[in-house]
């Protein structure tokens, strides 16, 4: 704890334009004091475990073989890098994240544009749109798996039976959705939950648009498409980036939908699920930690770019 506190002092005290007399140092501590509980709490609860993960990643440690705990060097990393499942998991994670973020962002944009108009029942439609986001993720995944996708009595195939019977056919297609397209099944369920999120952010962005400029452009004879492309879209850019960033943060880590809908089977195991399996089912602590370390390093690389985006987003909001 002390070392942590000292470290943060050292960091913040690095650049001191004023000669640091006793008085200004005390004033600095008064300023810092309200921040410290939260900062120390975060470092202890989130950073220390990562240090432990790093240590364990170099150890030979499987809970099934408690007598063989020892130093393993880079063995765990070699095993993770040569593991086909891990490579598949990386690919699945990318597909899942990009798929969900992209589709829900596009759908969200379309729906936000629809809801930006004034029409009868706009509030009601907005409320209906938000509902998917407010269903507990496990509950939503269960709902999709059993009540919608199920090939025998799910709503999708039920609706197909009903529509086909309207045309007098008693031989409707009854696909087994999850077996036929496992990854898309997970993606669709997540898109359903995340489109409202994107829509809300983009709608807020649309409503913060300077309307008089748009009106002037319209009077000057600009078409709706021209206005959308050269005025609305640039204005929305930062909201699109924000939605993509926040969506990615959550969907990269998705565990609930993969766990519930496919239990990681049929090529849908993403990184969180795979690491969970190595740790929770195989009890291979060393390998699980090595995988976690690799994921963290990968995340840091990507997050560095992402953070640059956010800092540009919040640029116009300088502190006092």
């Amino acid at each position, binding site marked *: 704890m002390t070392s942590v506190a000292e470290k943060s002092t050292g*960091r913040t005290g690095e*650049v*001191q334009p004023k000669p640091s007399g006793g008085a200004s140092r005390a004033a*600095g501590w008064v*300023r810092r*004091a*309200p*921040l410290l509980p*939260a900062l120390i*709490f*975060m470092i202890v609860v*989130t950073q220390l*475990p990562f240090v*432990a993960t790093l240590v*364990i990643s170099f150890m030979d440690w499987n809970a099934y073989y408690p007598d063989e705990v020892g130093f393993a060097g880079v063995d765990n990393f070699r095993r993770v890098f040569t593991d086909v499942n891990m490579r598949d998991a990386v690919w699945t994670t990318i597909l899942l994240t990009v798929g969900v973020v992209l589709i829900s962002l596009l759908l969200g944009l379309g729906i936000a544009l*629809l809801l930006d*108009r004034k029409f009868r029942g706009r*509030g*009601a*439609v907005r*409320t*209906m749109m*938000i*509902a*998917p986001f*407010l*269903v*507990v993720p*496990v*509950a939503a995944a*269960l709902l999709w798996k*059993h*009540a919608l996708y199920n090939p*025998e*009595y799910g*709503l999708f195939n*039920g609706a197909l*039976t009903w529509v086909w019977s309207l045309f007098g056919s008693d031989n409707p297609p009854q696909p087994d959705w999850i077996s036929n397209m496992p990854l898309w099944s997970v993606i669709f369920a997540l898109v359903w939950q995340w489109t*409202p999120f994107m829509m809300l*952010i983009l*709608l*807020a*962005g649309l409503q913060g648009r300077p309307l008089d400029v748009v009106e002037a452009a319209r009077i000057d004879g600009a078409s709706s498409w021209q206005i959308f492309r050269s005025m609305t879209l640039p204005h929305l850019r930062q909201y699109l980036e*924000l939605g993509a960033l*926040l969506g990615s943060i959550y969907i990269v880590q998705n565990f*609930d939908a993969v766990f*519930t809908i496919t239990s990681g089977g049929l090529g849908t195991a993403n990184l*969180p699920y795979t*690491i*969970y399996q190595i740790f929770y089912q195989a009890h291979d*602590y060393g390998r699980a930690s090595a995988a*976690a370390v690799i*994921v963290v390093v990968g*995340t*840091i690389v990507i*997050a560095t770019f*992402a953070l640059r985006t956010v800092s540009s*987003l919040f640029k116009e*909001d300088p*502190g006092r």
Partner: protein
Amino acid sequence: MSTLTAAPAVPKKKERGGIWLTLLAWVVGILFVLPVVWMVLTSLHSEADAATNPPAVLAPLTLEGYREFFTGGASPWPPLLNSLTASLLSTALVLLLAFPAAYALSIKPVRKWTDVLFFFLSTKMLPVVAGLLPLYLFAQNTGLLDNIWLLIVFYTAMNLPIAVWMMRSFLSEVPVEMLEAASMDGASLTRTLRSVIAPVVMPGIAATALICFIFSWNELLFARVLTATVAETAPVFLTSFVTSQGLFLAQLCAAAFVVSLPVLAAGFAAQDKLVQGLSLGSVK
């Protein structure tokens, strides 16, 4: 609400094709809410009517599914109460830690306050699964496994970055004059926080609390790994339905609806706060 205000100055030609766009908006809205409606409807059907093809939309309604959920097997009350405890206490803890921190990051910012802010956000980007194993081993060795307090501490850490970001954005809206007046009157930090700043940012605090509550209530991975029978939360309880077959569809829908009800209620009650909260306070 805003339909009445901006009526003039809108040219008439805008209305062309409007009816179709309105219709489209309604269709999309209904499509998105349909699975939720279907969940509620199925939960109110008997098991025999729930798992039919084609769907028995007009089947008689019954509370059988709910009765079965609450009294049939293991009682859902302990998990629901555990979820409530974990969500409420961690939210309270988050607010307690985030409020002063946000103060030190906006109103009287420390040096390098942006670095601190981005440190908080970066912890949100690190995959939680990477910290899971050490926490599990720690819990195992200290006897904290299956203890609700471990979840509370973890949920606090999970939501603290979001809360700090949100509250910072709300606090930076507090007028400087009010703070100057308070400091001239010689008000202490605690007093300034409590009686000058808190009332102004109350809506923001409510939004923050709402988001933290929802995220804690929804969490599955940690609860699944770190709890067993005693501290089991509602989402973990729901996973017992993962492999269930058509025999329990009504009960499953009842369970899914009951567990989602607090989030649905909180979310609908505070719809306007939702965007602000989810965008870390950057979208007003």
